[in-house]
């Protein structure tokens, strides 16, 4: 029987400080948290209680400190095994963490960041029960997904230095019914349209006085459709492409092959010679040769989910060696909060394979010479790190083993998951176990590997001189604003709401 959580707690005489199951919005059956997650949360709470008392500070203050973050990883090790590089001392002394992971050690370039055009996206509520275990509670309102909060969460509350504002499925409308060309907001384009990403980029870089943001364009081969001929409306498509490259100054395309905002009647394959290859040709003419493509996380699709399979990268990458293809999410088929993630056929612990990621790996294994496909790890790293460290280790281990450490790209999918700092912390502390290294031949992930993953690889793709960019950051306005933010008492919100019962 469904029952409001507060009511259940009241009746049971036990007010759980954290929810032990995702809280449903009445449109899906709430799934219980598994035993390990429950235990993990319990241990974090216990450790927080204990250490906050020792230090004479509130639980809340403890949780928003580096000690709170360390406590979450320390408790994870107690439950899941020693996956994270964390010492008990770090849960009591901020200096211990600072010594081990000095701030600024890595250049963090996040190629998958989002905000919305004033819309509360709704996705945070699914991650909240999980993240709350780390002392993170995400608010669910338009402000929290807004551009100002984007700046705060990404640039002020995390170590991220540079971002790509990344697209969400949507199509701009070019003309009104009278045939007049539309501009700006009138072009619509969904909750994060190309014109808005472009404005955000321009605004951020303008105020910073340097490069702090790049942006993507949502235009894709099936977005403008000639229904009479049942093929792309190439003139309209090319007009939009020209607009996005020349006027919006986009740095990459962002494709969702399994969506059909142009009502073409279908998704599209990246290796479709009639539909997609003309797009490549036009894009090359325009001088843009970076394609970012959402692969995996297919349950969001209705009937077109199969278009999110990475199989079409093979032919297209081989046919277009001059292009760079960034495979978002590393083709992880289902996120850990989806029921299919827990099904037997999703992950094979014997082989280390998991759905669709294994297919992406096989492409590279078949074509070792193929050098223009990169594995991005947004959401797939962060969520598996928390919920299934073993899959997480296979994800990173296999990406590096197969594609090379210079072909793994940092992305977080934040703001969806709040400030990316917790994901950054997770990567800093990440390591592959001896057991998996021995069994699967993975190498330990070195600091050099992490530096490449965190930003050096993406900088190369986007033609940025990382060394030069890093030198500019401390003096630019955004850094000054960040300093002022902390001086004025700014603090990370993501750890400020831990254990809030009323939100359960």
């Amino acid at each position: 029987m469904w029952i409001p959580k507060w009511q259940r707690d009241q009746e049971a005489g036990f007010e759980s400080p954290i929810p032990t199951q995702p809280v449903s919005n009445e449109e899906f059956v709430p799934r219980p948290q598994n035993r390990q997650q429950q235990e993990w949360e319990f241990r974090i709470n216990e450790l927080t209680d204990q250490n906050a008392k020792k230090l004479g500070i509130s639980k809340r203050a403890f949780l928003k400190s580096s000690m709170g973050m360390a406590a979450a990883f320390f408790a994870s090790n107690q439950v899941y095994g020693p996956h994270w590089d964390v010492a008990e001392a770090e849960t009591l002394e901020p200096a211990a963490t600072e010594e081990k992971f000095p701030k600024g050690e890595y250049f963090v370039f996040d190629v998958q960041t989002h905000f919305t055009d004033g819309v509360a996206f709704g996705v945070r509520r699914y991650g909240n029960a999980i993240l709350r275990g780390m002392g993170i509670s995400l608010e669910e309102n338009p402000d929290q997904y807004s551009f100002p909060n984007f700046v705060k969460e990404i640039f002020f509350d995390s170590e991220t230095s540079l971002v790509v504002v990344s697209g969400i499925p949507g199509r701009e409308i070019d003309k009104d019914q009278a045939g007049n060309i539309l501009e700006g907001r009138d072009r619509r384009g969904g909750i994060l349209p190309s014109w808005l990403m472009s404005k955000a980029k321009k605004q951020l870089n303008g105020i910073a006085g340097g490069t702090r943001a790049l942006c993507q364009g949502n235009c894709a081969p099936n977005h403008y459709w000639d229904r009479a001929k049942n093929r792309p409306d190439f003139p309209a498509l090319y007009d939009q492409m020209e607009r996005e490259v020349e006027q919006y100054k986009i740095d990459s395309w962002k494709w969702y092959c399994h969506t059909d905002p142009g009502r073409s009647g279908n998704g599209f394959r990246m290796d479709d010679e009639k539909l997609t290859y003309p797009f490549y040709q036009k894009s090359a003419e325009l001088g843009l040769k970076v394609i970012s493509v959402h692969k995996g996380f297919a349950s969001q699709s209705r009937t077109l989910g199969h278009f999110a399979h990475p199989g079409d990268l093979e032919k297209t990458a081989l046919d277009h060696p001059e292009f760079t293809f960034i495979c978002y999410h590393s083709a992880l088929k289902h996120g850990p909060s989806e029921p299919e993630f827990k099904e037997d056929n999703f992950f094979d612990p014997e082989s280390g394979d998991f759905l669709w990621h294994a297919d992406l790996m096989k492409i590279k294994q078949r074509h070792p010479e193929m050098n223009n496909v990169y594995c991005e790890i947004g959401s797939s790293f962060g969520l598996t790190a928390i919920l299934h460290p073993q899959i997480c280790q296979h994800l990173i281990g296999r990406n590096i083993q197969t594609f090379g450490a210079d072909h793994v790209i940092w992305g977080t999918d934040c703001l969806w998951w709040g400030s990316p700092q917790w994901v950054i912390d997770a990567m800093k502390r990440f390591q592959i176990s001896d057991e998996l290294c021995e069994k699967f031949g993975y190498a330990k992930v070195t600091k050099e590997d992490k530096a490449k993953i965190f930003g050096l690889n993406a900088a190369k793709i986007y033609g940025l001189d990382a060394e030069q960019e890093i030198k500019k950051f401390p003096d630019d306005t955004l850094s000054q604003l960040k300093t002022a933010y902390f001086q004025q008492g700014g603090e990370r919100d993501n750890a400020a709401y831990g254990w809030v019962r009323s939100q359960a």
Partner: protein
Amino acid sequence: MNCGLLPARPNRRLRNLAVSGSSFGSRIAWFLSLTAFGGFGLPGQSEEPGRPEAKPSHVGRPLPDYVTGDECLFCHRQDIGPGWRVNEHQTTLRPIESDENVAAGLRRHPELGRLARHVDFILGDRSRIRLLKRSERYGRLEMLSALLRPGNDPGALLVDNETPFIWDREVFGRQCAGCHATATDSRTQEFAATGIDCYACHGVVDLRHANDSSLVHLAKKRRDSPELIAATCGQCHVRTGKSRTSGLSYANNHVVGDDLFADFAVDLSPAALQAQPPRERHILANLRDIRDRKTTTTCLTCHNVHRGDAKKHRRAPSSEFCLICHQTGEGSPLTYDRRVKRHPLCGY
């Protein structure tokens, strides 16, 4: 240099960054500008939403642009996504790959095996199965003339008519597209997407619904009228209706919120109702009662569309309406009359 990216509620900490009288202050003005103004609207949404007084109609007009289901599921992937993939509305027309039994049965069928590679979609399920392929034309499917039904063994397919089997280019558009596909234009009989998309029931969705769900038709918070709910479900589930203008058995360019019955003629006379088996009759009787303002019970009182069940109907108030399907019988307080009227084409 403000690009209009303004929060509805200024962030206190950002606002506290005000530093005046310094060169730095001029740049920080940028942040202040982010917080100084009111909220911002989404494109094309300047008008206050509300329920229209005069019901619109799209008969003879092009269908509007709308947010497609795949876009909807980008946000609703977790709540609606998993269930919707197996929901009967969604699978009413499904890719052949999604039904291994039929796909395997088709491949090994002596007469149909050679056609298997052409088949893209399956229509129907338990009593009748039809095979379809994509047309070269936009928004159309071609239907194979073979009348199939499942055999007793898994994957077994029985054919009820004789060869030669041909691909019919028109029948799906003429008879099926209105309710087995989305956004079908009655004039051209072309559809925009296979299966039933969110648009079919929720209409043209205002993106601001993320902040206020009452902006979406059939949202719980909106409390749509019984008439609107009846029209929304009725556009497909009133199977005895006919469009006056198109002559087709499905509604003419109906968009949720339109006045369905201005064009879609349905006989709600006692004789017409009596001629129908219980499943059809309860729909028509409910429609009649809503029309006559005798009830506020609607399809959604009993049916949960996203979950695909009718468990809630046990909670509906008892009335004579129940007796359409449940008859009292000797020895048993209620029996359920399972008679249905099958469509000759798809078996629904």
